[in-house]
């Protein structure tokens, strides 16, 4: 579990994800809309990692912010003629932030199951509202015809998803920068402290509660932006962005990649969504089964997810090398 290292300089390996993304743009033109979705989920996963991996808050209700952001952008674009993509993003971020701070302030006083329940209740409420207020949200029919003006007046959101891909990539970049700065700062250290040993943090006089609310709100805002991005990419928003399922899916993605390590949020969604694209269409039952088994295996044997395994493998390699060196002397 990493969180705070004394070296916040950007290491060369960290440019890898961006290089891969740009390569994908040129080499896989037919898969760009899938790519855009992956990018959106990476941003969403980053937001969850912030509170789950770093602050230790277990929540199944993160879809509430995602969905709120998605619907805000959708409603503005479909019903109120606000089509500028950046305006839509800002509005979504604001709405999600508002929900984040208001609910966070209320529920973060509780812990464990109670907290989990409350997060579930909140996302269920948002789902119900979206379902019932069909005059605004389209209800079960979803909101189609979301107008999104071309980015910077030049790049229209097209069928192939090219504009969408680059647009999401840029958004993700900023999100990533933000999270990175956060966790490599004293604030990040405090989060890790809260996660590892809350009692001690209280003893040291750290304002635990307000720090948690702050990070929760930040996380909610990011999730809201991710939701809005999804709506803009699809020019459509439906009830599936809310409720237990996206929260659960996201949790699985993050665990797969590795919680509490910045890049777990990158690896997880890529692996999950690509595998799903490939396998779930043909054999949906086997897909669920496979993911369930994988999850249990990860929980029992590979708590750190894919990146955790990768780390262990690297460690084993370096141990081999040093023992080889030692025996050579």
């Amino acid at each position, binding site marked *: 579990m990493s969180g705070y290292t004394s070296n916040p300089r950007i290491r060369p390996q960290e440019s890898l994800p961006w290089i891969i993304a740009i390569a994908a743009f040129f080499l896989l033109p037919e898969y760009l809309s899938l790519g855009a979705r992956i990018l959106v989920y990476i941003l969403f996963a980053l937001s969850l990692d912030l509170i789950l991996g770093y602050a230790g808050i277990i929540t199944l209700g993160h879809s509430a912010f995602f969905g709120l952001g998605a619907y805000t952008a959708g409603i503005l674009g479909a019903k109120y003629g606000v089509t500028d993509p950046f305006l839509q993003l800002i509005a979504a971020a604001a709405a999600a932030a508002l929900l984040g701070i208001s609910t966070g302030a209320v529920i973060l006083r509780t812990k*464990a199951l109670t907290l*989990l329940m409350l997060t579930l*209740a909140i996302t269920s*409420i948002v789902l119900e509202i979206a379902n019932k207020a069909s005059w605004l949200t389209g209800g079960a029919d979803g909101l189609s015809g979301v107008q999104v003006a071309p980015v910077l007046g030049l790049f229209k959101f097209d069928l192939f998803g090219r504009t969408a891909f680059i647009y999401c990539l840029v958004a993700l970049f900023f999100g990533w920068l933000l999270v990175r700065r956060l966790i490599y700062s004293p604030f990040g250290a405090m989060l890790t402290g809260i996660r590892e040993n809350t009692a001690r943090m209280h003893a040291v006089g750290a304002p635990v509660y307000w720090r948690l609310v702050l990070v929760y709100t930040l996380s909610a805002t990011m999730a809201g932006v991710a939701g809005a991005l999804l709506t803009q990419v699809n020019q459509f928003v439906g009830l599936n962005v809310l409720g237990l399922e996206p929260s659960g899916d996201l*949790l699985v993605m993050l665990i797969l990649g590795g919680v509490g390590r910045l890049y777990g949020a990158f690896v997880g969604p890529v692996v999950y969504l690509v595998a799903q694209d490939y396998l779930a269409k043909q054999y949906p039952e*086997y897909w*669920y089964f496979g993911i*369930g088994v994988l*999850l249990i295996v990860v*929980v029992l044997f590979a708590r750190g997810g894919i990146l955790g395994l990768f780390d262990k493998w690297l460690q084993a390699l370096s141990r081999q090398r040093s023992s080889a060196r030692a025996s050579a002397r």
Partner: protein
Amino acid sequence: MILYVISVGLSVTMGLMGFINLAHGVFAMAGGFILSTAMTRLGLPFPLAVLAAFVVVSAGSIVLERLLYSRLYAAGDLAQVLFSIGLILISMAVARLIYGNLAAPVFLPDYLRGQVHILGRDFPTYRVFLIVFSSLLIAALWFGVERTRWGAMVRAAVDNRGMAQSVGINTRQLFMATFALGSGLAGLGGALGADILPVQWSYPFEHLVYFLIVVAVGGLGSLRGPFVAALLIGVADTACKYWIPEFGAFLIYVATMAILLWRPMGLFGVRA
């Protein structure tokens, strides 16, 4: 009321073992499927089939507990949540493979259908039966926990596991037995409720929120709590749908939040 039967087991296992088991709905679903299969394929009469559901699910849960759950007792909340989600996914996939897309067909025996006339109003017979049954169940459970030695041991173990062990109580066996009971109750609930809450492959996820609400609101480790909670929720839900159908499930969630914020440990919570 079905919520109660299913959830009381969850309250006990979660309160007792401190294990966040979201997969409780899986046992309920299993119970429902077993009932259906027993009645349609094996031709068992209703009461026997219900009993079969209870027994088979209990036994199955013991296997699961030995193999998987026991490894995760000390593993921390997140791991337990994830594990139970994984279990849900697997069981949903298996259910879909075996039973396909459809809800398990359930045919109630004739003596449980139709209506009874009580106090000047007609009530569906089956629902009356369920209420009566749940009341008997809670009476039996209460008796078992408050008055018997086994119950005393369970309570002791819930309050302070270390102490209970040093007094010579075999907590491991106790946990196993209690888990089996809790899961069996879930299976029972699923079977009895199969007519009203159709049992299909997506069952555990669909009703997860409800089970958790009943347990969280009722309070972990308590028997009365989930009963009251289930009663409250059942009544409120039906009343809302009757008087203001536009709001549906909405009010349940709001009420849950209100109660949990007022009393984070649930109405009758035992754990501090």
